[in-house]
């Protein structure tokens, strides 16, 4: 699945990259290489970008950049909330 499809609280491992050129280089340089485990921390108040946490780093990516990262889910969010837990009650933007 893609990083952009994960929910807040999910843990996952990077499997590969679909992104190209500049975005791909940027993602590689930030350390999202195969085998890196991370946790989805939160989404921005307007629903995009998302923030993930790994190796002591807080990294944020837009959803369309997150869609360039192939991942394997290794842990579910405890409450199973959709990306952006508050979205059920609060709907800003689209």
């Amino acid at each position, binding site marked *: 699945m893609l990083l952009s499809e994960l929910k807040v609280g999910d843990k996952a491992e990077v499997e590969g990259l679909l992104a190209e050129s500049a975005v791909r280089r940027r993602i590689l340089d930030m350390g999202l290489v195969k085998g890196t485990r991370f946790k989805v921390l939160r989404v921005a108040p*307007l629903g995009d970008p998302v923030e993930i946490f790994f190796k002591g780093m807080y990294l*944020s990516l837009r959803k369309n950049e997150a869609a360039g990262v192939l991942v394997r889910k290794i842990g579910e969010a405890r409450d199973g909330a959709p990306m952006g837990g508050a979205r059920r009650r609060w709907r800003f933007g689209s």
Partner: protein
Amino acid sequence: MATGKEIRVALAGNPNCGKSSLFNGLTGSHQKVGNFSGVTIEKHEGYVDYRGYRIRFVDLPGTYSLTPYSPEELVTRKYLIEEAPDIVVNVLEGPNIERNLLLTTQLMEMGVDLLVALNMYDEVVARGIEIDVKQLQLLLGCHIIPTSAKKKQGFDALLDHIVRVHEGDIEIRKNKLGFRQEIEGAIDGIAEQLAGEPALSGFNPYWLAVKLLENDREVYTLVKEYPVWVKVEIALQLAIREAEAVYKSDPEIIITEDRYAFIRGAMQECVRMPREERASLTDRIDRIVLNRVLGLPIFFFIVWLIFHMTFTLGTPLMEGLDFLFGGIAAAVSPHLANETLRSVIVDGIIAGVGGVLIFLPNIVLLFLGLSFLEASGYMARAAFVVDKVMHRFGLHGKSFIPMITGFGCSIPAIMATRTLKSRSDRLATIMIIPFMSCGAKLPVYILLAGAFFEPAVAANVMFGIYMLGVAIGLVSALVMKKTVLKSDSEPFVMELPPYRWPTLGSVFLQSNIKAMMYVRKAGTVILLAVLLIWVVSNYPRNPAIDAALERRIASIELGDAPEALKKASIVEAEHHANADQLEYSIAGRAGKLMEPLIRPLGFDWRIGVALVTGLAAKEVVVSTMGTIYSLGEADETSPELKTILRNDPSFDQATALSLMVFVLLYIPCVAAIGVMKKEVGNWQAILFYSVYAMGVAWVFSFLTYRLAQLLA
């Protein structure tokens, strides 16, 4: 000092690793700031005298990697290759050593003389992280010195090492990390061929080979120039095919993966992280600050707070400076016998440059606030919070702060766009900043809205003007990004650095630098422009007007009115003469020449003159109108000026609205244009912008005028 006793040291490191604090701590007051040649990335240089050596430091821009995709990365790499500093100090953020090591592996490959400063070591100790420095030193092949920039620890050890490395006392083993066999084989093969090319002898062939496999555009264009390329290309294709066959991947990814594998190995061998029980402080703050519900209100509150601080603290200082310049003018003028000279110096230079310099307190305060946000780690969060909205208009989250800053003054706002890495994002942001109504335009609105609208309506009118600026700015950005500034939008893949309490020194230093840049600007370009505007509004002189004034004064003095009345009449006569002279001047003629052009907007030649002189600074529009309407000194609160405007048959609500819109949108003051030119780097873009802004101003003023007439 003898040049032989100089050591040139470059500081390289990730963003937020404490590199700049270390630089400040080491070099103290011996610093200067410039730009790296050809780019608007700031270059901080400084030196320290140590054991008979003058050690010169250059603080390279913070980068995660040396693969040039951003201007910073390009600058850092270019500097390391072309300037070949004697020693490169790689600053690591101790608590986050793992991800900082990527840059280290790349520096190792370049074959530079490397020293590692393990910074924030105090924090490493406090958090119970154990780092086996000796073992890590063996793996990396370079010396590691624990430092703490904040507590000024390890400075002597670092300087000591630099000197000893320079003297050859410490040998640096140039370790390389091993890539997997297939890649290593490909690198060796390509490197061997590259080594046979004499034109490339200035480069490390191993490094060139790695870069070629990493698909590095810069190195590609370099190597393609030479005949050796024919052979190299075949070897490259082979390596790519092999990687695809064996690993279903490409060399670029494999190389990065192997770097991280090496780092992971080094971490396992040398570093023991304590199990963190509680969520980190950063995470706890972010739970509130980046909360889905509270995130936006907190963001707007912080922006409001900075603004409030800037203007409530800045205004009294500004008034003080204004008073000071008034004092200087008053003190100087009696000593200048020559009327023309006095006018140049007092009305031209002192008033003009003073009018620009009085913004200095606001600029310093605004930058103090912004530097604080940057150093504390909130700035990246601000971009995170608003990126979605900004992205809709083709901009980046980081464009928001400069835009907001534009409400204060365009100049610091334009300088603040330096945080944007993509050139097209940056150009678009710079070009819409002047649409954010700056503080200098406020007097014009206050005068016009105050004269033609009820107080309650006037506030709404002003709010509407501000909103119009924002709307036109955002739409302009969208249009530009879709047309002339198409291409490279900056991806939003950025680190939200951990929150830190900024060191006071670095915050002050940052704002000081910006302030000095502004002052230098005021001393050069602005001085010239101000003088030019003084000339066009004073020349040519019409002796007939002076003669008429003298006759008038003489006849008033001969009359038998009371003394007080006589004085008032003389002042009035002088004001009339000034107005006539302004009409006669180049500016006045320009205004008349412009009249057909601005007639459809409801403006006559007098407003044309005010718009011309308004290029010196927007507040000047008001004082020029004061002169034209024969009032002498006038500001936006003068009841006389308001009354005269209201009684002028050629001036009504529609004209006032149209003028406000025009002042909002037309090209900003010369100071802002000067800074724009400096930041953008070429005149074509400025010309494009000027034509665009004038066009937009004309169209919207015209629409405003016609609509207002229809509705009236």
